[in-house]
């Protein structure tokens, strides 16, 4: 099996797919870094640079005053205490909360790219992994070697998983290194507020707590990786089913884009939550953003994605091992 994976890696690298993905990521990171930098600059002009410490101090005093008042629900009090802690941390560690360091940039970048950009990158690799063998005709040589078909497909799938991991790692590393040049590398330990849940249209803050930014980033990356694997597996299945790479890419692209559109307009179509494409923004659950359809939770979304993943994998293997190759 190691030999087969080595083969697939050799082909992937020779076709410069990973390299292309790396360049795309680098260019986009630079673009976003510049955009973010412009934004920060504008804010700085508005607020002035020296002011932020004083205004943060003022905010903290405000919160302390409100906490002193007795007419307040426990929930609300807890939430205020959490944000008090966060702001105290900013002050103690001399961090301007409106100016991101590299870690905040990475977080922003990953969270925004999880439902479209990273799936697209994964698609570049996944969608021709099998269909290109058909279009090249090399499938005839590949399948007439003394190796069972499922082993060949498995080696391709493992290669895909490795490539996806490499892409996610590349996004993280490039975003951190490149944005750090502008924003600085500090901020890995900055606390981030998390634990919001939305239930019945209300923000439930009872679970709110602070988390070090690097832990939060790990969670983000874990979820993004999971999404990428699901999308990759679906594109992989299409690559088995549809012999034309372009057609397979088209279908994946249509699904991804329709997901982005649907997320904004399906709130009344409840069963749409079983579609994989409206479940791709898992990181929103960490930030307490309301899901596109009521009743969706992190667990339900992951379950839906898992079912799609399993089905795609079963279909891929059954079709690939049974099909006649012309």
């Amino acid at each position, binding site marked *: 099996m190691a030999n*087969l994976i080595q083969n697939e890696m050799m*082909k992937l690298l020779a076709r410069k797919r990973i390299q292309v993905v790396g360049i795309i990521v680098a260019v986009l990171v630079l673009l976003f870094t510049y955009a973010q930098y412009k934004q920060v600059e504008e804010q700085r002009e508005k607020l002035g640079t020296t002011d932020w410490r004083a205004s943060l101090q003022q905010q903290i005093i405000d919160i302390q005053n409100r906490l002193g008042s007795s007419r307040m629900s426990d929930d609300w009090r807890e939430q205020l205490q959490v944000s008090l802690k966060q702001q105290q941390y900013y002050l103690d560690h001399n961090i301007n909360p409106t100016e991101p360091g590299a870690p905040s940039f990475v977080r922003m970048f990953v969270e925004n790219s999880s439902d479209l950009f990273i799936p697209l990158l994964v698609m570049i690799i996944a969608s021709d992994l099998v269909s290109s063998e058909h279009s090249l005709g090399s499938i*005839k*040589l590949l399948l007439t070697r003394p190796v069972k078909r499922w082993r060949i497909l498995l080696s391709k799938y493992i290669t895909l998983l490795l490539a996806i991991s490499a892409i996610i790692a590349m996004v993280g590393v490039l975003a951190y290194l490149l944005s750090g040049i502008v924003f600085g590398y500090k901020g890995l330990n900055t606390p981030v507020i998390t634990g919001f849940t939305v239930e019945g249209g209300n923000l439930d803050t009872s679970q709110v707590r602070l988390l070090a930014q690097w832990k939060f980033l790990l969670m983000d990356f874990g979820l993004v990786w999971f999404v990428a694997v699901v999308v990759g597996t679906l594109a992989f299945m299409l690559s088995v089913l549809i012999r034309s790479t372009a057609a397979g890419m088209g279908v994946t692209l249509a699904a991804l884009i329709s997901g982005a559109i649907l997320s904004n307009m399906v709130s009344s179509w409840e069963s749409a939550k079983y579609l994989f494409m409206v479940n791709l923004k898992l990181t929103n659950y960490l930030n307490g953003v309301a899901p596109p359809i009521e009743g969706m939770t992190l667990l339900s979304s992951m379950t839906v994605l898992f079912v799609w993943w399993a089905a795609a994998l079963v279909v891929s293997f059954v079709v690939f091992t049974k099909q*006649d190759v*012309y």
Partner: protein
Amino acid sequence: MSTVTLSVSNLRKMIKGKEIIKGLNFELQEGEVFGFLGPNGAGKTTTIRMLVGLIKPTSGSIEICGYDVKNDFTKAMQYMGCIVENPELYPFLSGYDNLLHFARMLPEVDEHRIAEVVSLVGMQARIHDRVKTYSLGMRQRLGIAQALLNRPKVLILDEPTNGLDPAGIREMRQFIRALAEQEGLSVLVSSHLLSEIQLLCDRVAIISKGEIIQVDMVANLLNKQEKIIWRIEPIQKGKEILRRYTEVVETDDGYLVTPYEEKQAAIWNRELITQGTQVLEMNRRLPALEDLFLELTGGGEGIG
């Protein structure tokens, strides 16, 4: 004296309710070149794809060196090398990387063996160039090198001379003969070019519409069907006279064709002369497989 390396029995394939291959039976012996001859659409490629495991037969069995392709796929494939249609290797890899790629899929094929097959097909000079820079002839040779990596007992080549120039065809033919005679390989070659099969093969199976019409030694088939070609003036009278003795076919370009019978030919000739016709030409001809094929399939198939 010889052992069977490939045996096919009662092989059938249905596609969408239509029987494409209708019960094929044949065997390959060690060291022989076996031709698979038929017009396009006769089922040659479908059959070959079943032999190499790309298409699953509806019924029937295929054994390579005693291993069933369906039940013992990996063992059977260890004894087989093939090129199905064109040798479609990875154009973005070098020739050597292509061989390395396929060697990794085979048990006990090391770099030494790769070097061996490279020199066998005479590719040492260009082996580290990318395949996309190769000519068709070089790709064909690389394809053969790839097929020989695992020291197969059976070599299956679908249209091996397709697209080659005359020198390439000749070279390929000599190479295939050498493999069969010196290394004892069984080679199955499919072609719609009858002249090709005639020059290359020991035995031939003629296939049409999914059935084998005849399997025989190439030499035997040719012997049976020798002909005399006549040019007689006036042609109608000559035809009448010959008709009294044997079957006559008139060709479009003004010749008469009769079967060759050694004892009779002189009598027919004397009769023609005494009746006052002029015999301008009288040729004995070994027929090409082409004639034979048209005869066997009832003509009108359109070859090539």
